[in-house]
């Protein structure tokens, strides 16, 4: 394999920025171009629904790297530029404005995009999505005029927005289609826990109820639900999930719920790699899609190295994410689409517990850690080890997870 002399990264989210840093740290000295359709210097997204929305940090505070780094890395950072086409024979990318960029290797780090709600009235002023800094800034500015807020979807973004807005004193209603929030990831028991958490903070959580219309003359005044209820509100925040963003398509580029990559991050097009939210990738025999910060960082780091390396390294990092809600910190390690048993340490009533998900052979698949941050790293190693563990020992608070 010849070493590349020009690398183009599409997308300057956390994956793209991590790739830039890794390539330079690994000694890559060739041309490095980053294109992103956004106008802002690359920033970190997790604070958008938390500290940024609460008003305790500014846009400058959440820059992913200080401006000096971009000079030091010698990157041709092209903002407000959208790459739209790839030509694998000519080794070029074409932008929306018709510019052609040549490459030896490409990393697609195009992230994810929000699912949109399609109900009457959804385009009224006062309906917000939350993905970009621009979205968050607009929502934050509007909140001062809002007394009643409706959040559609009790997933992580919806829950964090509800939590932040309750703290600001707004009256918050959350609509959730399912019977319990987050139950598809965490199970019914924890779904019930998260439902009570919202209620304990005076959020009006309505489950098995969806939005059917947004009403208002020039801006939102109320929403209508599937149970025929009308909820008065001055703003609506929609958080109904994300999907991989795959703006660049080609007949030989395999896409299925995202860019399909192998363990090394290679797409089906030679020389074209992909990392982060925009991919589906092999994890323990399944092709999975993960849209979380830590995955984007770790995936991009490994794949950027593979773009340079003679011998590539497979990516099999145990996924991890966190969520801050109502002053509590929830951390989740692993990935479990299904499980056969759960084991818990600590107390749900005190909001300090760790729930572990095991397969039929007593191997730890995943864990949800509530306000017990010390558990996280050792559990991640235990999940990584893939060996059976003793249920009784897992349950026994007197034993540290590092001893198992």
């Amino acid at each position, binding site marked *: 394999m010849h070493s590349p002399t020009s690398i183009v990264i599409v997308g300057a989210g956390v994956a793209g920025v991590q790739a830039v840093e890794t390539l330079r740290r690994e000694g890559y000295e060739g041309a490095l171009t980053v294109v992103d359709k956004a106008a802002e210097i690359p920033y970190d997204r997790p604070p958008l629904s938390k500290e940024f929305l609460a008003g305790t940090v500014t846009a400058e505070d959440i820059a992913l790297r200080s401006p000096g780094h971009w000079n030091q890395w010698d990157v041709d950072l092209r903002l407000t530029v959208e790459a739209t086409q790839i030509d694998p024979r000519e080794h070029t990318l074409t932008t929306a404005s018709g510019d052609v960029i040549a490459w030896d290797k490409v990393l697609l780090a195009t992230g994810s995009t929000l699912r949109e709600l399609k109900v009457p009235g959804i385009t009224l002023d006062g309906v917000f999505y939350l993905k970009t800094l621009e979205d968050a800034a607009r929502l934050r500015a509007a909140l001062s005029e809002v007394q009643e807020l409706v959040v559609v979807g009790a997933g992580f973004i919806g829950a964090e927005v509800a939590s932040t807005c309750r703290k600001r004193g707004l009256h918050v209603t959350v609509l959730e289609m399912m019977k319990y929030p987050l139950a598809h990831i965490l199970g019914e028991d924890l779904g019930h826990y998260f439902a009570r958490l919202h209620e304990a903070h005076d959020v009006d959580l309505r489950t098995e109820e969806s939005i059917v219309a947004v009403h208002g003359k020039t801006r939102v005044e109320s929403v209508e639900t599937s149970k025929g209820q009308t909820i008065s509100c001055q703003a609506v925040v929609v958080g109904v999930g994300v999907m991989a963003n795959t703006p660049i398509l080609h007949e030989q580029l395999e896409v299925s719920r995202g860019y399909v990559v192998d363990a090394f991050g290679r797409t089906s097009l030679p020389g074209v790699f992909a990392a982060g939210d925009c991919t589906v990738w092999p994890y323990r025999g399944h092709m999975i899609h993960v849209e979380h910060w830590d995955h984007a960082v770790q995936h991009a780091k490994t794949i950027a190295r593979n773009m340079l390396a003679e011998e590539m390294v497979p990516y099999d990092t145990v996924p991890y994410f966190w969520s801050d809600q109502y002053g509590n910190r929830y*951390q989740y390690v692993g990935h479990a689409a299904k499980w056969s048993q759960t084991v818990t340490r600590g107390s749900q009533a005190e909001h300090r517990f760790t729930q572990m998900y095991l397969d039929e052979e007593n191997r730890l698949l995943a864990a949800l850690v509530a306000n017990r941050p010390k558990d996280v790293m050792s559990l991640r190693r235990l999940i990584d080890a893939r060996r059976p563990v003793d249920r009784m020992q897992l349950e026994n608070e007197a034993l540290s997870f590092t001893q198992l």
Partner: protein
Amino acid sequence: MTTVEEQEYLVLARSQDVREGEPTSVVSDGEVILLTRVHGQLHAVSGICTHAYSELADGELDGTRLYCSLHFACFDVRTGAVLEGPAEHPLRVYPVFEQDGDILLRRERRVQGA
């Protein structure tokens, strides 16, 4: 008006409270300070991750490498330097020493004279 610098010493903890390999945080004058002991040697750095709000006492110590439990930023507890992960800025290092079973912080206080 002149400014004089005076040294002062603050007791942060008892020596026995900071055990080998177990990061311990104390609050002194509103600052969270993380104390660690590695091969008997005492180290003190700022106790909040420089990347995002997270208490480093909740993290993991592997030799002199300290990992934050939130995003796994990694610091050297001897120098405060960033070794890995998303943090850009080093941890502040505090001058500490042990005397008569106490851990003491040495700091300079500016006193304004006439």
